[in-house]
């Protein structure tokens, strides 16, 4: 006879395999996200920055020509009112007002980083054209190695997000549905061991995690040349630990929730802040310093940081003590609390 843990795990896998839409959400959706975001943020030749030149004096045309000779700039002659309008709407990064042959005014919004950058480039171009000699020789070396691109940043984040979603929805939702359908009660009336029931979610998720990651990573490699710089085992260890933490939180949410609506609310309450705070689509370092300790303690931050460090920097496990500790803590704590508070009937 087949062990009950295996039977319960088969129940999870069969239910998933016989629902095509569920497969889309676990595998197809992240692929689609990768594809869309990969295309949106692909590396292209830098476009020229548009600079408005106010056509108010005779040398305006000369200024515009000087700017257009630069590889990074495009000088456009504009009437004063039109120049102001285009600056406001962001169509030009900066407006140059030629006051006289030897004096110009830069008009810009200093809060816009691209305006600041444009001002420096424009200033350099104009000063050099007017005969400035640079005392220091400079050279540029362009870096577009894999590991440092946005797509390299994105892939581990998407894996983390997927682990979070499947852990919480796959486990929490299924349990609450079983409670609503009285299936949980029906099973509680048998000698089924409670640990087998909860363990089957764990096992099923671990079995699914391997193909999910392989599919996503293969796609990212084929489509965008995303490479694993570090150790695959360390990478999977982070994925497994993250999975344990998220399944634990899923169990916690489902421990006492009686309705599907209640569960959905709780899931969103947990998932959405982490999507934003944990550095899935952009680096969490952008948030102010005083919230950083809190962000570091979020399980999704730990998964994302760990996966990124291993994949993009080839980091060793020993150097990733904090994320490892955070994930272990979440996994153990959520399981213990969920088991203690779980309501079977």
């Amino acid at each position, binding site marked *: 006879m*087949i062990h*009950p843990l295996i*039977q319960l795990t088969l*129940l999870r896998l069969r239910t998933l395999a016989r629902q095509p839409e569920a497969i889309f959400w676990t595998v197809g959706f992240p692929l689609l996200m990768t594809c869309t975001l990969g295309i949106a943020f692909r590396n292209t030749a830098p476009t020229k920055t548009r600079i408005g030149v106010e056509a108010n004096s005779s040398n305006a045309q000369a200024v515009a020509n000087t700017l257009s000779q630069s590889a990074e700039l495009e000088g456009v002659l504009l009437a004063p009112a039109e120049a102001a309008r285009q600056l406001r709407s962001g169509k030009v990064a900066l407006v140059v007002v030629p006051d006289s042959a030897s004096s110009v005014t830069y008009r810009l919004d200093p809060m816009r980083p691209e305006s600041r950058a444009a001002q420096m480039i424009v200033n350099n171009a104009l000063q050099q054209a007017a005969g400035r000699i640079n005392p220091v020789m400079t050279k540029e070396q362009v870096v577009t190695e894999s590991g440092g691109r946005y797509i390299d940043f994105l892939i581990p984040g998407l894996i983390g997000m997927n682990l979070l979603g499947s852990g919480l929805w796959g486990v929490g939702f299924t349990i609450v549905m079983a409670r609503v359908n009285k299936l949980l009660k029906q099973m509680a009336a048998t000698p089924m061991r409670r640990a087998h029931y909860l363990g089957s979610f764990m096992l099923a998720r671990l079995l699914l995690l391997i193909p999910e990651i392989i599919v996503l990573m293969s796609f990212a490699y084929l489509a965008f040349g995303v490479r694993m710089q570090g150790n695959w085992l360390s990478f999977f260890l982070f994925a497994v630990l993250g999975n344990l933490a998220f399944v634990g939180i899923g169990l916690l949410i489902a421990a006492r929730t009686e309705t599907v609506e209640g569960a959905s609310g709780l899931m969103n309450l947990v998932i959405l802040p982490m999507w934003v705070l944990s550095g899935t689509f952009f680096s969490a370092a952008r948030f102010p310093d005083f919230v950083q300790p809190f962000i570091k303690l979020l399980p999704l931050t730990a998964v994302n940081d760990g996966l990124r460090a291993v994949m993009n920097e080839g980091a060793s496990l020993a150097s990733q003590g904090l994320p490892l500790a955070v994930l272990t803590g979440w996994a153990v704590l959520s399981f213990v609390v969920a088991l203690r508070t779980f309501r079977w009937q």
Partner: protein
Amino acid sequence: MNTSSNGVARLALRCQSLVKHFKDVTAVNGLDLEVYAGECFGLLGPNGAGKTTTIEILEGLNTPDSGTAELLGLRWGAGQDQALRERLGVQLQETKLPDKLTVQETVELFRSFYSKGNTIDHVISLVTLEEKRHARVGKLSGGQRQRLAVACALVSAPDILFLDEPTTGLDPQARLQLWEVVERFRAAGGTVLLTTHYMDEAARLCDRIGIMDHGKIIALGTPAELIASLGAEQIIEFTLCETEAKFEAAALLKLNGVTGTQSRDEGYALTVSQISAALPALLAECERQGVKLDRLTTHQATLEDVFVHLTGRHLRDA
């Protein structure tokens, strides 16, 4: 009924003074019950009578506020719950089994929870779902689904089978098929405790019946005993043309062969021992009082009449 060597029937379960409150509702109010090994015992009562709470306490799914329940010589919460669950089969009201599994997979799943019991093939044949064994649960009819639920309760070859409203919502043919499953289990020596609000189900399946109302058993006995307790074999029900205030109902009790009267719905019900004497007497009385009969029916007394006699309400609308 199984009897021990000294001829006394063995108890399969016994509970004493069970009480269970939910917030401000008293679901079970001092209930005593004994079920013998090998019998089919029915708790008959309207919705809200406390049947489900009682059966769930016995199944170990609910704990009573006070009172004791003992099954197969064991008690819940005494450290032997797992051993006890191994010997029980439980079908709950309205369990929704996973839609995506097949019949066979569902039975295998539940069988895996028990250390011993029936083979998968045997269980599927007990509930006559052989032809559906590879069908998904989601594709089964209501009756087939309910038989599968009973199959999940039978996987352990249980000593006691609990059935909570097993045929509610099923069509007549599906009910009949489910009754046959229960009868086969009985014939093999199993003990059954079932709840129902269908008197025909109770009358057909049960050796003994406890009629429940407001958390208590208000009458107990074999179906025949309960009906005999009415002191009458027949029931006459009648209504009068337009409600005539001057109709003197008290006079009905004095009629020849009438043992009891009750006003029901818009009319009256008479329990009668001799219909051949009571019917002419009733017609004569109507004549005497100058009222006209609108509708008159007679039938053999049933458990429904027992319930109405005890509570003044019908099972279905109580």
